[in-house]
């Protein structure tokens, strides 16, 4: 169980986190989605008690992060953003070291990490630095699990990891959540959002939205269209044309297609095609159809709106001071 309420933290003069709140019940996976610099690592630092928040309260496993930080540390299994094990020590030596400082028998890992340990056990004698990206992260997860923590905090565990290992990693997290563990995981991969029970979209230190991943459509304002043709050159031209359209609220390439957001809920696909024809595009080979917004579409909509939000906020603080 993780509960954070109105956490704020300044780094230098800039605010790294502004009024961030989140709740992660036991047995669930909570995703923290955001680009680099969104404040994910700062939030992790605060929740694992490496850093004190300026304001706000939080508790991890029922322990207050300010007063009971020693208990919090015993409750938490932590994986930092960068690979943080001893590269010159072998897989087994790394695990033995962490087992020893947590006063646990190293052999316990097989029952705690199951599949994950089985996957790296064949490389027991290899120096950790010589493992592949995926293997390194699996070893780091094993080291974080050695004391059977109630809460897991994993900061970008799948960054730089191949798709197959990523999938295996997420499967392992799901199993751990099934055992009743609370999992907070950050990622900058939007497609991983769907693997979470709930996600928080973080941008420049503020929470944009918090939702169940398949609710993205309900949180999206207006209508989303997917436009595309087999001709790449034509796609590029259409992208430019649609971006300067007065009805467009965000237009970007999405895979080999174009996603166009519009503020009008009742607009029809024919309106878009008609506009394109009016701009001299032959739409016979072009498909225009409404699409259901993904988390990524929602994130883009929310972040493209936020600079204005920030401006108004700044003018507010100016008036106040």
């Amino acid at each position, binding site marked *: 169980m993780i509960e954070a309420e109105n956490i704020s933290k300044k780094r230098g003069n800039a605010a790294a986190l502004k009024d961030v709140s989140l709740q992660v019940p036991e047995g669930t996976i909570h995703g923290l989605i955001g680009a680099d610099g969104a404040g994910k690592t700062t939030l992790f630092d605060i929740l694992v008690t490496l850093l*004190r928040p300026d304001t706000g309260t939080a508790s991890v496993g029922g322990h207050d992060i300010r007063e009971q930080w020693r208990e919090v540390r015993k409750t*938490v299994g932590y994986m930092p953003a960068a690979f*943080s094990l001893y590269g010159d020590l072998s897989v087994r030596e790394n695990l033995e070291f962490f087992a020893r400082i947590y006063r646990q028998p190293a052999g316990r890992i097989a029952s705690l990490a199951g599949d994950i340990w089985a996957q790296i056990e064949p490389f027991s004698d290899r120096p950790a630095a010589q493992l592949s990206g995926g293997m390194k992260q699996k070893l780091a997860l094993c080291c974080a699990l050695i004391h059977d923590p109630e809460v897991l905090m994993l900061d970008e565990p799948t960054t730089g990891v191949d798709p197959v290992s990523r999938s295996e990693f997420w499967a392992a997290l799901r199993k751990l959540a099934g055992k009743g563990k609370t999992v907070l995981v950050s990622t900058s991969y939007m497609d991983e959002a769907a693997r979470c029970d709930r996600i928080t979209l973080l941008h420049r230190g503020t929470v944009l939205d918090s939702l169940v991943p398949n609710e993205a459509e309900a949180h999206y304002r207006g209508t989303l269209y997917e436009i595309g043709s087999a001709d790449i050159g034509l796609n590029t031209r259409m992208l430019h044309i649609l971006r300067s359209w007065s009805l467009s609220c965000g237009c970007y390439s999405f895979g080999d297609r174009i996603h166009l957001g519009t503020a009008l809920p009742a607009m029809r696909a024919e309106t878009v095609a008609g506009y394109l024809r009016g701009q001299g595009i032959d739409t016979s080979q072009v498909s225009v159809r409404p699409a259901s917004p993904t988390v990524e579409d929602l994130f883009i909509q929310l972040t493209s709106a936020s600079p204005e939000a920030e401006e108004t906020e700044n003018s507010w603080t100016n008036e106040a001071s």
Partner: protein
Amino acid sequence: MTDRFLGFVVKECRHILREKRTLAMLFAIPLALVMLFGYVISMDIDHTPVAVLDSSQGDPLARKLVQKLEAADQFRIVDQVRCEADIDAAFRDGTVKMVVVIPAGFGSDARRVEGTAVQLVTDASDLNIATTLIGYATAIVRDLNAELNTEQGLLSADTAPLRVDVRMMYNPELKSAYMFVPGVIAMIVMIVAAMMTSVTLAREKETGTLRLLTVSPLKGRTVVLGKVLPYFVLTAVNTAVIMLLGTLVFGMPCHGSLWGVMLLCALFILAAIGLGILISSLVKTQQTALTASLVGLLMPTMLLSGFIFPLANMPEAMQWVCRIVPATWFIEGIKGLMLKGQPVGDLWLPLTILGAMAGVLIGLALWMFARRDRPAR
């Protein structure tokens, strides 16, 4: 505490033993220094260029002396020095290793009661060669003395009409090779104890393992002590190796108490480790830790400790700076104990100061890491 502490020490030892190249270098550096000095010491004196500055205007006795010098295998008489002023230049060029100065009126003075003196001027920057040359030249002069006495019907041992007057240039204090041993130890201690400790701790910071350790139940002071112990042992072994080589190869004496020497070394090593930990707590990366140790520790140890430049020759203000360099007190203590044979009680000042430095620095390191335990602001 003990179990976690031992776990940490085991991990540290694994790091040290895994870095085979570094480890080999730590023992190769002192060995290389020994070979270097050892080579100089065992070098044979054979046809060494020697000049004669004869002011006696062809005196027969002077000629006899020159003939005897020429006949010796050790010397080769060269014609480089014609006046007093040439001596310096000849030594600087290295074309001459010794100048035999024969005074005016050499032959006649030798037959008077007060006698006369042959001056042997040597380049003592190469002390081993200089003393060997003087030894051979003195033997030749003694030969000549015996001959003179027999000539005058005296017993050869009675009086010596020719005295030898030795002048050592460039090294009036007669520093010998083993005088470098304390300095070499000071440098090795700085490299192993201070530099390596600071780099390994900075690596824990840089790679993020220190964050994991902070979140773990491991206490900050356990981390510090877990670093101190293995590096203390490693440095102590290294110091013992250099001491042993110094004694066996250079013939460095140990006139004073061996326990005193050990205590001095232990305190110095602890102070160095404390400095290393302190540096690592101020920097973020291994690279800066390395640079900071080189500039902040190794340079002062070399230049401001009396190892290379004698303290007495420095300006007053500089001497005060030298007094805060731990190596200054270490070298003073080692010289006093081993070479001068002073009792431990006489060296209370270097011992106390090194002890205080070790105590304050390790205490500071413990305090700084204990503070890291709490969530940072």
